């Protein structure tokens, strides 16, 4: 999609005003409405579907498996969260898919509390989460620069938030016969973990009830990733594709539990070789852009997270209504 020179300059001018006017009259820190459901896939530990009014849709599923990690290699070469992206029309080794995979793996693995994935009473057993993301777009607008990051990030947040892990039964046995602990301990070394068949016994990976959240306040939530469009001195969250086309630069800012985390990254959102050459492409960022972006994300991220948490909580009540099967 290419804007005409007139459209382009009109849009750019209105967005670079001191009080910018966005084409859909949103505020600078306002997101487009999304339609989201959780836990609608019965065969997965957690799942979500997020739809946007422009027809883009993101389906995320979380599947857990148990892996054994020797203590020597822990923290280093093993990543317990593994993202896989599926974007129709893009090869797995294309720049877009490859960069998305790397960014998500990096952000989620670096900011995830691995202790919550550890199996109780097992020394080297961990849950490994395989997260599959399917991004569907009914327009041909998606390209290397139009990164649907916000939508994907919302979707993976919801999927992880709704992820439930099965109850370990080995754990229960221990309470009954804790007389000879040493014996059990040696048994546990060779014993395989056993899980309860009853899905209603499962526990949330991220506890959602308010009482438990106060209990462990340092419990991290899944990270959220925000993409900001920079136009002149203004920054915009959740830019539409038109806004991205007229933008000078983009900023990718990840957020986790109230903090801005690494890696913050600058990017180009508006490479459009056929468009008129405007001065926009030769402009870089400055200190003000970065600090403005960080404050903007700090301001909106907590609200976004609590809104998404609401989706998880309400999805619970009518879990079976959400199922597509």
């Amino acid at each position, binding site marked *: 999609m290419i804007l005409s020179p007139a459209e382009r300059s009109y849009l750019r001018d209105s967005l670079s005003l001191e009080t910018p006017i966005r084409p859909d009259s949103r505020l600078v820190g306002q997101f487009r409405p999304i339609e989201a459901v959780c836990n609608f896939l019965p065969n997965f530990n957690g799942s979500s579907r997020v739809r946007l009014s422009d027809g883009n849709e993101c389906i995320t599923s979380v599947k857990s498996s148990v892996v054994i990690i020797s203590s020597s*290699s822990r*923290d*280093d*070469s093993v*990543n317990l969260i593994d993202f896989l992206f599926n974007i129709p029309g893009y090869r*797995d*080794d294309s*720049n877009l898919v*490859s*960069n998305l*995979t*790397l960014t998500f*793996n*990096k952000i989620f*693995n*670096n900011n995830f509390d691995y202790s919550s994935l550890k199996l109780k009473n097992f020394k080297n057993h961990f849950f490994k989460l395989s997260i599959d993301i399917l991004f569907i777009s009914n327009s041909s607008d998606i390209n290397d620069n139009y990164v649907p990051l916000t939508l994907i990030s919302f979707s993976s947040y919801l999927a992880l938030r709704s992820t439930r892990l099965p109850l370990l039964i080995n754990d229960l046995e221990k309470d009954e016969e804790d007389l000879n602990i040493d014996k059990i301990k040696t048994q546990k070394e060779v014993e395989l973990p056993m899980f309860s068949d009853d899905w209603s016994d499962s526990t949330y990976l991220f506890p959602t009830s308010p009482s438990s959240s106060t209990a462990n306040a340092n419990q991290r939530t899944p990270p959220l990733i925000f993409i900001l469009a920079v136009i002149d001195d203004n920054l915009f969250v959740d830019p539409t594709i038109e806004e991205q086309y007229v933008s000078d630069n983009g*900023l990718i800012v990840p957020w986790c539990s109230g*903090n*801005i*985390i*690494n*890696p*913050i*990254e*600058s*990017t*180009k959102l508006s*490479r459009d*070789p*056929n468009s*008129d*050459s405007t001065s926009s*492409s*030769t*402009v*870089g*960022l*400055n*200190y003000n*852009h*970065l*600090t403005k972006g*960080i*404050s903007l994300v700090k301001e909106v991220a907590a609200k976004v997270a609590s809104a998404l948490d609401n989706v998880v909580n309400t999805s619970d009540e009518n879990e079976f209504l959400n199922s597509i099967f």
Partner: protein
Amino acid sequence: MNIGDRRRIIGPVNARALYFENSKPKESIHHTRKKNNEIRPFFIQTGLLTNPNGSAYLEIDNTLILVSIFGPRPIKGPFMNKACFQVETKFLPYVNQPNYLSKAYLFNTNNNATEEDVNIRRNLDITGGSYSSYSNIEQKISSYIHSAFLPSIILEKYPKSTIDVFIIVLSANVEDNVLSLISGISNCCSLALVDSGIELNDIISTGISRILKDNTVILDPTTIHNKDITDDGKYVDAVISFMNCKNDQIVGFLTDGNLNIDNSLIEALINNSNRMAKQIRANIDVYLIDQISSN
């Protein structure tokens, strides 16, 4: 009739086995300790290759980078009023690629990582475990360079043409910081672009700085130097590319580490990376001026 072993090829009776003087690989020359506010010395050379329109070679410690620029060359197809700019990065097959994903690469310099470990780590980063396509790290570097250099090249001067940048990493340390590799590659690309004669808005210079939890600043950090300082494990690195003659505009920005970011940290990172970028820019300028005067 000589009934010998017919299955194998046995040499003459008086043959002696080949003797290798030293079959063990030599100890690699490791980084010497440097002060926190110093940058490592580097070697640059342009125009080593004759086939591409421009090329540059850069050497820092064990890291060797070769960049070649092809273009502007004409392309077929519909009319384009701007040049098309493409970047490709490739590590030579035997080069161990640094691990960008690892949580604790900073602390894994305890020298007991075996060859096997290194290979496992390397395989984890390769897309689909296949070597035929670009690895994630290669793609990441390509996109950083692409977005950083896009503002610098005056693409409007070259309609209907393409400018291709090929980055080859000839050697790299596995323990090395990915960001420090990016900064080296980016500076090498600047030189190659100058060598190619393509019109630029400004030469891009890239600096990298690390800030620890106690606000200690380290310019040009690599893994090994600062191992003992970062015992508390909290740090943040930033590689930042500047257009120094265009009001120090930031054209590339990437952070890494485990410290939470706030505005004062950003300011410190920008200032210190800019300090390093300016030193590098000065070196590059002197090199280029010397080259002109020697011609």
